[in-house]
């Protein structure tokens, strides 16, 4: 790239241009530029929720799609998510003040018997990057921990991760317990982990199996939208 293009000044861009620029800056994981862009949009009178959805979440969707398609890899996605989080921390108090709609809340953890956490951490970061609130339960979680946290946090989504073929069946134990307590349908249950597949997700009664962190975000958005529609339809 030519050097003379390096000194674009964000505050001099037309708003439409600025938003597209922010999508690029998120893609490149440029944290300072994202903070600056968020502040400019707020100064220009954008509602915090509009900044979140049209500048940040839309930008992260591009990142997520390219991750899903094998064009971007974990390091780039983490840098993008970090930049997103920086923008998000400016917006968070304002969103609460303005009573903006919530994206949704997820309780996530690796199941009992399993101590692997990289995949779960990636999902957490990508979900936060997409504007969701995430409560991370860590590793080695028994049934009670999932259910207690889901109820206490008033979560929309329960996410379970397993990397071992010996621990993945425990996901069914958690779902069965939710069914027994009559709370299964209160939550969207998403499962993931290297040895899982779609067939397994269906067999144990999860709402969906998510192949990777990008798919988890897309799936969560789809289910949350469906839930909102159902509520609106009364």
């Amino acid at each position: 790239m030519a050097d003379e293009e390096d000194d674009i000044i964000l505050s001099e861009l037309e708003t439409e241009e600025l938003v597209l620029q922010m999508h690029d800056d998120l893609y490149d994981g440029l944290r300072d530029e994202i903070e600056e862009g968020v502040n400019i949009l707020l100064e220009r009178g954008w509602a915090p929720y509009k900044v979140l959805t049209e500048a940040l979440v839309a930008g992260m969707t591009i990142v997520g799609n390219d991750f899903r398609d094998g064009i971007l890899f974990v390091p780039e996605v983490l840098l993008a998510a970090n930049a997103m989080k920086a923008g998000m921390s400016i917006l968070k108090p304002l969103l609460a003040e303005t009573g903006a709609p919530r994206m949704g809340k997820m309780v996530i953890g690796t199941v009992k018997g399993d101590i692997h956490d990289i995949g779960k951490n990636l999902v957490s970061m990508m979900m936060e990057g997409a504007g969701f609130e995430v409560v991370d339960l860590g590793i080695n979680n028994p049934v009670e921990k999932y259910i207690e946290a889901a109820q206490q946090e008033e979560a929309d989504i329960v996410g379970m991760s397993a990397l071992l073929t010996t621990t993945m069946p425990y996901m069914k134990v958690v779902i069965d317990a939710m069914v027994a307590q009559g709370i299964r349908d209160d939550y969207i249950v998403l499962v993931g982990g290297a040895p899982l597949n779609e067939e397994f997700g269906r067999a144990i009664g999860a709402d969906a199996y998510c192949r990777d962190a990008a798919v988890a975000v897309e799936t969560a958005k789809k289910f949350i939208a469906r839930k909102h529609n159902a509520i609106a339809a009364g």
Partner: protein
Amino acid sequence: MTDALSRLLADRDWLMADGATGTTLFNMGLQSGDAPELWNADHPDRIRALYRGAVDAGSDIFLTNSFGGTAARLKLHEAQGRVGDLNQRAAELGREVADAAGRPVVVAGSMGPTGEIMAPMGPLTHETAVEMFHEQAEGLKAGGADVLWVETISAPEEYRAAAEAAALAGMPWVGTMSFDTAGRTMMGVTSADMVTLVGKLDHAPLAFGANCGVGASDLLRTVLGFSAMGPEIPVVAKGNAGIPKYVDGHIHYDGTPELMAHYAVLARDAGATIIGGCCGTTADHLRAMRAALETTPRGPRPTLEQITGTLGGFSSSSDGTGPADPSTQRPRRRRRG
């Protein structure tokens, strides 16, 4: 050339490594969630049996039960204060079994990833990573490991940290990465990238390669990628015995001993010098692999079609090494420095 692995590599044109550690230990009663490394102290007889299984099946090299032996991993079991002890025991038990084998067998001190994401993306600094690997390396060295064997790495930063730790411990080492995401490692490293990475290290490994990942087919495509670069040091192939399947509430790997025997021969034809298995690879698989390697003459470099025809399809259409498909390039407005 004083180490046991270099001597074997000088004598022979292929070597067989071992199979699965986790799969075997679970079959011996390890509960999921428990740290296998604790068994080095609590059940030394079972760890000896694990090692002997590989040696008796014809392995020239076996890996110690210390994959999760860094402080970062042992911390999950509140055993971070036992790094030196557990790694030393892992290697001592190995030394015992190898020395009783009646032929040269290499004790390779297994070192797996820390499980943490390295800076600048994550919290783990280079210095801390080196320190943790070095602590583990000293334990393995004290227990009598012939070489260090770094495996399942996905980040180039972590591979470099392990190399530095091996240098600090004054140990020869081997290092493999896991290529499980569209032909690359989770962190985006291609087979060609790894050859370049290995070539730039001050403390070069004795051998490098791929382990674990998706299935045997994908792993061989990665090996072809290595050998196409004309690397100067031997290539390691340690692939999984097929892909895990969920059947009637149980999980099993779908790769038969027969399939792994084909895999071993194809791996050698593709340019690998050290050939073994990873998850799902039992002593039965290893015996079939050894027999096939001994009785099958070398063949030409296999094509991708021959690999998929024999072992099954790939998990992704490309291994990421070719020129980028222009249709996947996002039109960029401009890039900032």
